[in-house]
Structures are given as C-alpha cells and as structure tokens.
C-alpha cells in the first residue's frame, strides 16, 4: 500500500507501524464518574467496519509522525490522510 503522507508525499506502507481505530485519540476523562466503564470501552471496543475506517499509522521509518488514515477495509482504498496531532486538536485535546 502507499500512504500519501501530508508532509512527505506518497510513502510505502512498509515504513509505518499500524495501531488501528483512530478513536484511541479520544482517551476518556480520568475524572469521569464512569471511568472504569469508559476506559474499558476505550481500550477494548474498537470500530471494525467492513468499509471506511479511520485508523492510526505511525511513520516509524520516516518522520515519526502519527497519521490518521481513512481507508476502506474492503478495498484498501485510502481517501484521506491527516496528521494525528491535527485530528487530536480538532477533538479538543490539548495538553
């Protein structure tokens, strides 16, 4: 596969390490009342669609950025690649 890195252009997927569902960015609030349940769901229940999935790839053999790749799990077609940091900010994560 080829991942079109937003900063570096097209790169072979073999340069990357995969982690899966980009919802891992949305780490629950540790102060929440239902913290145990929320962390269980966060850690163990991931999106697994036969279709479009937003997923995390780490450019280990490159600039070490985490990317959010939007990819169809049936065809492997990639429709979007973003810097995970930008996605995290858009989800309201900061420090």
């Amino acid at each position, binding site marked *: 596969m*080829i991942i079109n890195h937003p900063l570096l252009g097209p790169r072979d997927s073999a340069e990357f390490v995969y982690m899966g569902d980009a919802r891992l960015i949305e780490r629950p609030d540790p102060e929440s009342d239902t*913290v145990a349940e929320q962390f269980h769901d966060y850690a163990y229940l991931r999106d697994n669609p036969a279709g479009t999935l937003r997923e995390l790839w780490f450019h280990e053999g490159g600039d070490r950025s985490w990317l959010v790749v939007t990819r169809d799990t049936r065809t492997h077609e990639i429709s979007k690649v973003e810097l995970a940091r930008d996605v995290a900010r858009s989800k309201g994560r900061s420090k």
Partner: protein
Amino acid sequence: MSGQMTQVNRLDGGQIDRGSSLKFKFDGKSFTGHAGDTLASALLANGVRLMGRSFKYHRPRGPLSAGSEEPNAIVTLRDGARAEPNTRATTAELFEGLTARSQNCWPSVKFDVMAVNDAASDFLAAGFYYKTFMWPASFWEKVYEPIIRRAAGLGALSMQEDPDQYDKGFRHCDLLIIGAGPSGLMAALTAGRAGKDVILADEDFALGGRLLSENMAVGGKAALDWTTQTVAELSSMPNVRLMTRTTVMGAFDHGIYGAVERVSDHLFEPAAGKPRQILWRIYAGKTMLCAGAIERPIAFENNDRPGIMLASAMRSYVNRWAVTPAQRVAIFTSCDDGHRTAADLHAKGVKIAAVIDTRSETPMSMDYEVLAGAQVINTKGRLGLAFVEVQQADGSMRTLECGALGVSGGWNPNVHLTCHQRGRPAWNAELSAFVPGGTLPPGMSVAGAASGDLSTYGALHSGAKGAADAFGIKAADVPTAADTPAKQSAFWYVEGCKRAWLDQQNDVTVKDVKLAHQEGFKSVEHLKRYTTLGMATDQGKTSNMGGLAIMAEIAGKGIPDVGTTIFRPPYTPVSIGALAGRMRGMEFHPTRLTPSHFWAKERGAVFVEVGNWLRAQWFPIEGETHWRQSVDREVKATRASVGVCDCTTLGKIDVQGADAATFLNKLYCNPFAKLAVGKVRYGLMLREDGIAMDDGTAGRLAEDHFVVTTTTAKAGPVYQHMEFVRQCLMPDADVQLISTTEAWAQYAVAGPNSRKLLQKIVDPEFDISNEAFEFMACANITVCGGLRARLFRISFSGEMAFEIAVPSRYGDALMRKLMEEGEEFDVVPYGTEALGVMRIEKGHAAGNELNGTTTANNLGMGRMVSKKKDSIGTVLSERAGLNEEDALKLVGVKPLAREDKITAGGHLMAADGPVDAAHDQGYVTSAAYSPEVGSMIGLAFIKSGDARMGEKMRLVSPVTDSEVEVEVTSAHFVDPEGGRQRA
C-alpha cells in the same frame, strides 16, 4: 554426428540460431539443440515427446503447450544444489550443458511401476481417500499415510542450500505494460513516443508475444519483421524500459506490482556477482494488461497422451522453433484457428493426417482432408500418440495414424491479473469465455486478446487506444493486420467421454467432475477442492474452464452462474529464494554493533544476539574452559572491585520542552512532576490496559530536559508509545522527543572501586564524591580533558555504580581508557551473563519478568502506582482480576540442596500434594548461579508470594525432567538494604 541429423523433427526457418549448437542431457541421454530453443522445443526436435508422468495415475506426459501455462512437460532442471524441481520444459531456455530429468516416475519415465495406479483408477476416483483408510483406526498414520506421502509431490528438493543469490529492486513508471504482444507493443509505442516513463515486461525471452509464433503480415510485412522494427524503436527510447524474462506475478494495492526477472536462468550458472533472479516491486501510475489469451483444449477419451497438444502451441513450435512434434499430424478443432495450424504445418512440409472439425460448416482445404462434423472419440499409443479414433459426421468410425494431434477449442482471455484484487471476470457469450470484469485493480486497463479482442488488428488497435486513453495522448498509427478474429464457439468435451482429462497434471477427468456433483460438491470451490481440479503447478490455466463447463451442464446452469474459483497471485509460480532476496544467512536481519564491539572482539568476547544487537556475553580469559568460569569471575571481580559493561543497547530517549515533566508524569505510573534537576528516578510505564510495559530510568538534566532509558527490547515500542501520547493525547504540550540510542555509547561502571576509577577520567571540575554526587544523581560532565559526557549514578548490580555516556564515536576510546586506568583496580569487562547474574541477585526485574502479563502489583511495585494523578494505565490497572487476593508476587527461590538446579520456566508446587495444573503455584522467570549465595537462585512469580517467605516448595520441570526442593526467599539476595549502591 551433427546435431541436425539427430534432430529428426527439425524443420527449416524459425527463430533459432542454427549457427550455435548446444549440447544438453535429458534423463542422462545427450542431445543437441540451438540457441533460441526451449527445452521442450529441443526435445521435440529430437523426437522426444515423453517428458514426464502425471501426479496420480502416473500417465505418460508430453508438452500440451508452448508457454508458461504448461501442465505436463514438468522436469527437474539442473543437478546438485541447483536442481530445480517442477520446471516447465516449455519455458526453460536451452543452454550449453543443460541437464534435466523427468519426475514422478520410477525406475524410468518409460517404465514407471506406479503406473499401476492407472489400472486401479476406478478405486482412486475423486475423493476416494476421504471415504477409506479408516480401518483399523491406528492404520492411517502407521500404514496408509506413509504410502500416500511416498507418492506425494512431483519433483524433489536437492536438500542442499540454494547456492545462488537473489536480489530485490524498486521501479517506478507512468505506465506498466504487462505482455509484449501486439497490444503491448502498440501501447508502449504510444506512451513511449509521448514521453511517458514506460516499463514493458514480458515473461518470454523475446518480445512479440503471439507475433513470434504466427505466419502473418503486419503493416504490410512479415509479423516478425514488424516486431523487430518496433522493438528496435522502443529500445531507442530512453523513457521506455524493456524487461524480458520478467513475469508480472501479482497486482497489489495502490498500483504496486510484483515482478520476477529471471536474470540468469538461461545460463549454466549466474555470472560472478549476478543474482539468479530479481524481485521487482513496480510502482505504476497506470497499468495495461496485455497478457493475451490461452488456447483451451477439448476433453475427449484418452486426450492426455504425449503428442496431443494445443494447436496454437504446435504453430509456435513450427513457426518459431522450426520443430514439428511428429512427422504426421492431425488437428481436432471446434473453431477456425485449428485450420491455421494445419495450413502452417502443411506449408512447412508436415503431413496432415486430417483436420477433424466438430462443426458441420468448416473451411475446406485443397491440401489435406477436412472431416466436418467429426469428433475424436479415443486415442491410442502407450507412451505417445499413435492413432486417433474419429467418429465422422455420418456416425462411421475411422482410425487415423498420427504422432501428434493439435487441439483447438477456442481461446480464453488471460484475465488472471484483473482478478488479483478480488474482482470477478464477466462472461462473454459471444466468445463463450470469461473476459475482464467491471472491477479491475485501480489504474489498470486491459487491451488485446486479454480483453477479448482476439484479432491481430484488434490487439494492435486496442493497445494503442488504451495507452492513448490512459494519458489523453495521441495513439500511434495502427499498422494493417488481419482484423477478423478466428470464430470460436463453445465445445468443451466429446459426448460420452469418461476418462477424458481436464487437469492433466493432477489427473482430474470428466468422470471425476460428474462424481463430485453427484456427491453434492456443487460449488466451484467444492469441485476444485474435492477433485483437485486446477490445483496443480499450472493452477488450471488450461483446465478450469472445461471443468466449469461440465459442472454447469450437469447442474443445468449457465457457466457464469457457476462462476470461477478465485484467481490468486502469483500468475506463475515464483521461487521462494526470489521472494526472500538477500535476507538470508547472516544477512537475514541487520546486525547492530555497539561502539565497543571491535574492542570486545579483540578481547575474545563471546557474543550473543539480543534482538538485532550483538552484545558481549562474557569475556573468557586464558585457562577458562567453561562459560561459568568466566561469568563467575566477572561477577566476583565486579563485586570485589570494579567491572565495566557496555549498556549502549538500552534505549535512550531525549525528552525536551517546557512540558517535559508533565509529559513524563503522564507516561510513568509513578510520580515524575517533582523530580529535581540533577536527579534520576526509576520509572515504570504501564500499557493503557494496566499491564507493565517497560521500566527504566529518567534523569533530569535541566528543568526542561530529561533523558529516558528503556530496556533494549522495548526501545522501539516505547518510543512509538511516547510519540502517541505526545501527538495524539497531548498535542499542545511543549515536548520534543528524539531517540538517541545510537548517539551515545554508554557503560556501566560498577563495584566498590567504580568511583575511584571514574575519578581518574572525569575532569577535575566535576566532583563525583558521594556527598556531591549521591545515589540517583545525574549530570552533564566532561571527561578526559573536555569530552562531553553524561554521568548517572544508577545501579543494576546493587553495587556502587555509575553509567557514563559519551558520543558514540568516543565509545571505543572510552572503553579502552577505562580498562587502562582500571588496571590498578583489576578492572574487568563483564558481559550480559554477569549482568544478568547480578541483577537476579539484586532482584531487579527484566524482560523475563516484564513479560507483558505482569502488573506493578505482581512485580511488588503496586505502591509505586500513584493514586494522586492520572497516568497511562492506572485506571485499568485497578480491575479486580489484576488485584486478586492470591495474585502472583515476585519473590526469590533457592534450592534446599546447594547443588540442585533452579530451572527457569519450572513451575512451583506446594511441598506436598499433587503435581498438576490445578495445583500450580507459580513459575520461575529467571535463574542463575549466584557466586554470592553459592548456589543457583531464581526469581519467581508465586501466588501470594510475598506472604510465603521461607516456605518450602517443589520446583518441577517435567519437560526437562527435574524436580527439586526450594525455599521461597526475598528477591533481593544481595544487600537488601541497599547500602552498597549508596556508598
């Protein structure tokens, strides 16, 4: 005797180099052929039709085709370590000194005792083995299976290491064209002239595809001349790369194609320094599949004898290789194409016994007999074809004498690569064939016969148009050529046939397909799996369609409703060596060396693989004959005075920025926010699931600068995890990370004299006395008169110890300096074994304890997990299952009898009672001989271990046949109060 005289079936003309005479051997017998021959064409020229035996019935086999679709003429090429089993004689290029032998026959290909299977074929019908060999139960493995296995396979491996080299390469292009026949050549001309970067790849050693085999005109000249001229123009274009002997074997995601170039297979052995084959990964903007079509045979009784071949293959042998398979030849056809073969053969002076055409309306000939509306209903000839029996239109029978029979049942477009991404081909009723379907791999288009355009002009035209459409450029002018395709209609098998072969290699007959259907194996996948149809080395290129057609007819369905099995890469089989390339032997993985490696080698160190690193394991000195002597000495000398160990392989991560402390506080389960500058702290990282991930130290060199160490094994994953937390969870934090593992050479200097030794090299302005530089201190310093260095007062051994780091290029020099300056203290270098012994003695956890299932609680560090802050893993570490009453706890064990062995991996049982899984109390993670204790010791996880100090238990290791009595102790065998490391 000249070659020509023995080549009884050699004709005039052809594209062979008659000036060269190549000697070769088949089954020990010597023959000659010419450059440009394949092994099959050369053998046929020499009158040899019989080249092998089939898999199940050991029926005699000769070539069916003249290309890579060959199921029958499969031989073992070359001898010794270079022996290549299952090589298609039809594509193996002839070279001087070639040797080949037939397979799956004993004692010889002409007399094969296993041919008895053929006589017993009624007992060996499809699926017979699932119904039998079950009585008595024990006989399957002891009696039946060994017999079946002896019969398995065709060729044999040499059992020797492949002596040849393989390589890999990467290529990029605007347009990859697969197949250099008329459509591929025109596509290349079109794109090449427009300046596109083009790769034109063909599995053959000559470009031209079918044009090399056809006696026809293109652009007003002989097809071969047009081909030569076109190839010459393409060769002159710097933007066009012509790759012969290159099979594009698979279409992978995003325009990546795998291709295998057979660089040296046409040579006696590869030239010095050259690989045998190269695996190319081709990154193509666009791809055109111009792979042509494969002729399909007709099933009739005993249609598998040597001498019976595809009519188009016969034309190739005659026109390209100037070989006739026999002096007298018949043709059996259901379309006009068979007549072309007859005409070409006749023109070369081969006697045509008759053309048997299944159709009542057929082309007629003045030169030979044409039997319209006739069918071949049987054949004869023990080791090769001698007669065909023909049923004529009026029902009368006739026997024709012939040494070869050309069969033509029409053509199947070569859709293989269009389906590699799970696309399915579409049925074309006009052609009675599958053509490329609607869902092709992105970027791919298909031209020529592969797309179902079966005329020469159609191929030339669609090739040019395809390339023009792909880029919006002008198509190259299309030369004139025959524009009416040979008409084809479906004729799959002769009515009433039984032992009519579909899959000639695996011996699947029409009868087997019918039986499979009768037993309920009705889907194509069931059919394939039950009968093994299409599972041979040719993957059913000439057999699958026949099987489908028969299945469809029995089921009363159309062929498209039955569907095809799935086309999977590779297009043709690929040597495993090519797929591995250079990654074998010592090159299998990269080897990482520490800066002191060459120094250690000089000292005679024994090295051990630690991941990709090589580390010194111990340093034997004169007189030591057993590794334990060296390791015990290194441990004792270190604990008595001072030792030095290269710990460069530990992961080192520089953490800088205003939020560095906050960041580490999130990563480590224990507190880091308030670590003072100049101090180091032990840190435990948890995974988000609450399990211990890794441990190490973090030293604060400045308010905004930390140096984190990881274990050797986890350096990569921990770095990745830290980047995840930084980028995905704390995107606005002011933190920068960089891995500096290779940038710093780092040495542990341990033992009571470690300070004294270091004081000799640390520049005098730095005070490293205990008062100024206490346990867990760190600092940027200089050594040896100004060399920048980092010093950490940390201890893995339990002794007073330091770790000193210098830029990698000074690592070797520093080690030599430490040895030199340490002479007065009898300094020793110590390796990973002594390191391991000392850390076990001290009760430090390492990889064996941080095994991915243990928690801080298990490790006895439960109280380290801060309840006052959130860090990765703390929430889930609180789950009940990880905090049960009798949770495993890290403890020490030592044998009751000093001489007894502690086995790492042994399980602990109570002193009395049963020894089984239900009574398992834990296991030993690490074990070593402790010079300090004077016996072996171990670290162990034991249920409620911390509450069982002094308990006597049994350590059992049935798999290594040992059982000893042990006592549970503290994991800290040495200096439990920690006085030494603080001294």
